């Protein structure tokens, strides 16, 4: 066997340019796969994580009526606990379930600020500051000031929103809203922080205030509009989800509330998951493209060495060994090419990630704030991606080498010897 490997290696050196081009083709395909997989992976992971942090939690609990008219931001269908017992008690019960790490309440409501010439509409999020800082990446996005504090009449706003209303950190502003009893009111808040996140939702559409203040001004004591649950592992919700559903059933609250896992009930996530599968197909296709060069090379090789093959067969070399020899040639090209490709791919990926070159900010300007996507995409360099690309390169090349190799193995020695 080892003599075959020797032979194969020597054969590759016989036409250095041709071998080099084949290796280069594989290297480029594999590098491309590494890069694209890193890009897509980063993109999808980013969307999942933003979706979880700002929209869905790992699991979300809302009133079923609220869910039907979620866009209206109605305050008439809040989460007010089990049998009206309040969300604090509900949180206590939920935290006793193994697998639930944190319970994050939010009150979302419509509001407006009147400037000299227009009424700027926005959305208020009453939150528990410490939980938000831990659960979301908001801490990194605070470019000025600090997060709101419980018990204080303070708000944190996005940079673009502040620009719209013409105010800055340290200023006070009067915010208009409607309470849960349809009373139109205004309250004055101090702006204590500024956010710049690249997300339209955070920068332009919403402002944060302490949950207890929101509950006070909206007349919603111990209530929230959404209850988000953070679990130990968002990729494996089945067990925890079942326990939460059981708790709600025991408390006769399952008819009133919806318990929604992050990856079900949101059309965008479903589409992303299908996208992931499609991309896998694309990676394979990319490598096949590179492998075409190898097929072409191998066909040429076989044609050129027909006489040689004939001679070998005549000397007693078995057809299985001929087959192996050609396949090994293919595999060696595949391995070298894939190895180079992985290195080049990793380098390029790392470079684009560090420089943050891929920036969709301008393209996202018109997109709704409901699409949570970080416009600067930093592709990830993952060991599993590198391994995947390497193995893909070698396997595809080996398989594509089979066809010309079999042709060579099947050659009739007498015909082969006679050929030109």
């Amino acid at each position: 066997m080892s003599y075959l490997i020797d032979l194969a290696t020597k054969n590759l050196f016989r036409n250095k340019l041709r071998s080099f081009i084949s290796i280069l083709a594989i290297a480029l395909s594999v590098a491309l796969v590494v890069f694209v997989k890193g890009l897509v992976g980063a993109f999808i992971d980013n969307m999942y994580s933003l979706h979880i942090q700002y929209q869905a939690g790992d699991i979300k609990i809302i009133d079923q009526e609220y869910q039907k008219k979620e866009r209206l931001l109605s305050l008439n269908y809040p989460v007010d606990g089990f049998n009206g017992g309040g969300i604090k008690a509900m949180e206590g019960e939920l935290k006793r379930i193994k697998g639930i790490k944190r319970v994050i309440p939010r009150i979302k409501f419509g509001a407006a600020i009147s400037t000299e010439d227009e009424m700027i509409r926005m959305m208020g999020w009453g939150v528990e500051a410490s939980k938000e800082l831990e659960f979301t990446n908001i801490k990194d996005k605070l470019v000025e000031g600090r997060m709101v504090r419980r018990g204080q009449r303070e708000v944190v706003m996005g940079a673009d929103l502040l620009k719209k209303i013409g105010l800055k950190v340290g200023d006070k502003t009067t915010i208009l809203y409607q309470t849960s009893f349809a009373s139109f009111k205004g309250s004055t808040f101090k702006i204590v922080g500024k956010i710049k996140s690249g997300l339209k939702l955070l920068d332009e559409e919403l402002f944060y205030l302490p949950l207890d203040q929101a509950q006070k001004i909206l007349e919603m004591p111990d209530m929230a509009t959404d209850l988000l649950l953070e679990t130990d592992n968002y990729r494996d919700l089945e067990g925890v989800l079942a326990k939460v559903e059981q708790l709600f059933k025991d408390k006769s609250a399952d008819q009133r509330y919806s318990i929604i896992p992050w990856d079900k009930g949101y059309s965008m996530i479903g589409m992303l998951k299908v996208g992931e599968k499609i991309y896998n197909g694309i990676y394979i296709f990319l490598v096949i493209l590179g492998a075409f060069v190898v097929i072409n090379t191998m066909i040429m090789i076989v044609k050129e060495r027909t006489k040689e093959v004939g001679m070998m067969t005549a000397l007693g070399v078995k057809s299985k060994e001929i087959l192996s020899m050609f396949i090994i040639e293919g595999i060696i090209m595949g391995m070298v090419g894939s190895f180079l490709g992985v290195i080049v791919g990793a380098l390029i990926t790392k470079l684009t990630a560090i420089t943050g070159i891929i920036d969709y900010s301008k393209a996202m300007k018109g997109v709704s704030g409901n699409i949570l996507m970080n416009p600067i995409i930093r592709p990830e360099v993952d060991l599993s991606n590198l391994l995947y690309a390497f193995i893909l390169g070698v396997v595809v090349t080996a398989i594509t080498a089979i066809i010309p190799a079999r042709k060579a193995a099947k050659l009739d020695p007498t015909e082969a010897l006679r050929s030109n």
Partner: protein
Amino acid sequence: MSRFKILLVTLLTSLVLLSNLAFAMTAEEIMNQVDEYHHLKSAKVESEMIITKGNRKLVKKMSSLIKGSKLGMTEFTNPRDRGSKFLKRGDDLWMFFPDAEDIVKISGHMLEQGMMGSDFSYKDMMESAKLTDLYDFKILGEKEYQGRSCYLIEGIKKEGKDASYYRRVDWVDKERYVPLKEELYAQSGRLLKIMETKKVDKIDGRWFATHQVIDNKLKRGTETEYRVNSIEFDADIPDNSFSLRNLRR
């Protein structure tokens, strides 16, 4: 025919004709009378709004001062809204809230939205300009409504005027000159609101609707009632009642 007979017939015919002319009011005249009764030159009003949303019922009580079509001040007196004040001066609306450190000024299209979750918009409340100034009216016919004989009158918004609705159809009580029913339309032809008068009282020589119900056709399951509990017409209200200082107090 003898000359005498011809004279008699001519006299009788002209009498009939003349009498018809004398009793046939134009649409404008009818609406002028409506305005006379309805348009408040100045008044002090105690009223309440009852908003029904599904099975929730919310009551808002208000004290209002009105002077002409440019000045109006309303203060909410029910517990949940107590202390909230709204001041209208010309085209501007100023608002005072106990929980705000500053008064808020709003203008323009914000006024078209439902006040306090009701189906009366701020504009509806504050629109105390005369209907005849805002609309061109014509008589469509006569109809009965709630057992009372009414003129059916259509009004189209005058160009350049700032009225809340493009077209309105009023059932005006012939005897009392109070609209018993109103259909309010957008320029697209879409029916926006229906107002029905449930009670009419004679106060200080005028007939005035003291209980009205509005059905907002754009929102399902809601209904707003408006009741006037007391009203003093032609009250003497000094201008400085409508000052920003008074708003802040």
